[in-house]
């Protein structure tokens, strides 16, 4: 049972990993087209320039594939190649039924398990060649399509509608609370499974047109490496030579939104480092939520600044979180004696 739960996470992550570049195309191009066109008072975003309009269309084309790609590659994770076709079909249906990413996830799992089940049938040898080209795609698509249309599509669409409108209308208190939790999750395992759950939620909400979930997440993503990098600069005596070098790397990784830059520090001294980065990221994310910082790209760190809503507070939120992490970890840390550091610094290599 536990084994299958682990597999389910792997299937989901497979879908998300293939979806990310699509969200990058859609999120960034749409945001840029709108930002470059400017916003007319009272009318919202108006894209009139033909070049920007085409840019917008390219982004919209990418977004229209987001849910199908998510579903198709969840199914690929489960059933290998035979999963892709029914997964894509189920995903398009989910998108058409307005069942959003939740519908896509459900469609992907149905398609994957159905395709894997049919793949396992024992058939006479002379029927074998027609299995992968006729039987598996047709039957699995009919099953996943039928279930989406007649059974699960509409209730999921209702759920999605409730969730997105709830998130859009969320009061400030709840938004801050949500961001505290998401920020803490992002920092907790620095790119591991807990981090990816929060990240995935931010990414799929971009697809639903809610950017204020990804905004605080984007802030939280870069705080652990930037905070640890700053900490090594502020108190070099508390870090080994290897850690000081890793500090520069962490600063660079933080700028481009790679949380993993903090791993060498956390691996060497988890008890002091992890609480410091969790607190920094949680507070940074909460500050971002307080000022409605949004992010249109499925990525974090200063590198996404061009597609951020309220860029000034985005930077302020990052600085606050980074400062908290650096100061807190340096208060907790004692100076190192390099000669005692016999087994290295725990850098994971």
């Amino acid at each position, binding site marked *: 049972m536990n084994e299958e739960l682990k597999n389910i*996470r*792997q*299937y989901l*992550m*497979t879908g*998300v*990993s293939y979806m*990310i*570049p699509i969200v990058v195309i859609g999120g960034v191009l749409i945001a840029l087209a709108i930002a470059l066109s400017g916003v007319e008072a009272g009318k919202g975003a108006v894209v009139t320039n033909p070049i920007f309009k085409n840019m917008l269309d390219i982004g919209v084309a990418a977004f229209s594939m987001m849910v199908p790609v998510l579903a198709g590659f969840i199914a*690929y*994770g*489960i059933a*290998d190649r035979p999963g892709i076709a029914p997964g894509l079909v189920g995903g398009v249906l989910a998108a058409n039924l307005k069942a959003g990413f939740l519908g896509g996830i459900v469609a992907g799992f149905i398609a994957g398990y159905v395709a894997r089940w049919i793949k396992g049938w024992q058939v006479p040898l002379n029927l074998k060649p027609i299995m992968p080209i006729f039987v598996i795609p047709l039957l699995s698509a009919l099953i996943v399509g039928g279930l989406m249309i007649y059974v699960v599509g509409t209730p999921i669409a209702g759920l999605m509608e409730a969730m997105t409108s709830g998130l859009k209308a969320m009061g400030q208190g709840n938004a801050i609370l949500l961001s505290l939790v998401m920020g803490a999750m992002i920092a907790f*395992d620095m*790119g*591991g*499974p807990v981090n*990816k759950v929060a990240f995935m939620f931010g990414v799929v909400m971009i697809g639903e047109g809610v950017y204020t979930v990804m905004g605080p997440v984007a802030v939280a993503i870069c705080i652990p490496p930037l905070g640890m990098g700053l900490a090594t600069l502020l108190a070099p005596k508390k870090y080994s030579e290897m850690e000081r070098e890793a500090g520069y790397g962490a600063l660079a*990784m933080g700028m481009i939104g*790679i949380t*993993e830059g903090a*791993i060498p520090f956390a*691996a060497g001294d988890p008890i002091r480092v992890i609480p410091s980065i969790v607190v920094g990221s949680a507070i940074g994310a909460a500050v971002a939520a307080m000022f409605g910082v949004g992010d249109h790209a499925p990525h974090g760190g200063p590198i996404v600044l061009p597609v951020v809503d309220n860029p000034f507070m985005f930077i302020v939120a990052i600085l606050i979180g980074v400062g908290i992490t650096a100061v807190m970890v340096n208060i907790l840390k004692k100076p190192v004696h390099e000669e005692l550091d016999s087994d290295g610094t725990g850098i*994971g*290599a």
Partner: protein
Amino acid sequence: MKIIAVTACPTGIAHTYMAAAALQKAAISLGHAIKVETQGSIGIENKITLKEVDEADLVILAADVAIKEEVRFKNKFVYRTESQKAIKNPKALITEALTQLSENNK
């Protein structure tokens, strides 16, 4: 021992390569030959050939997502784990995989 390994993580930009580097270093320091294929967001790099699969004693898959072309390893002993385990303690991971391999061969 000849080890082949595949690493892959959801985003495919950091963990995949950190895990590959960690496994490479640990295997060499333990005196094994190793080749690590990375399946990042850029696609497959340092690809393991069928000949190398044939010659290998042990296959390690350190992946958080479904890997590509897994069918290559179907006749081999495969040790499955997550990319993060390979980054944190690659030596222990290889030792554990070899223990399971020798139990499997009994």
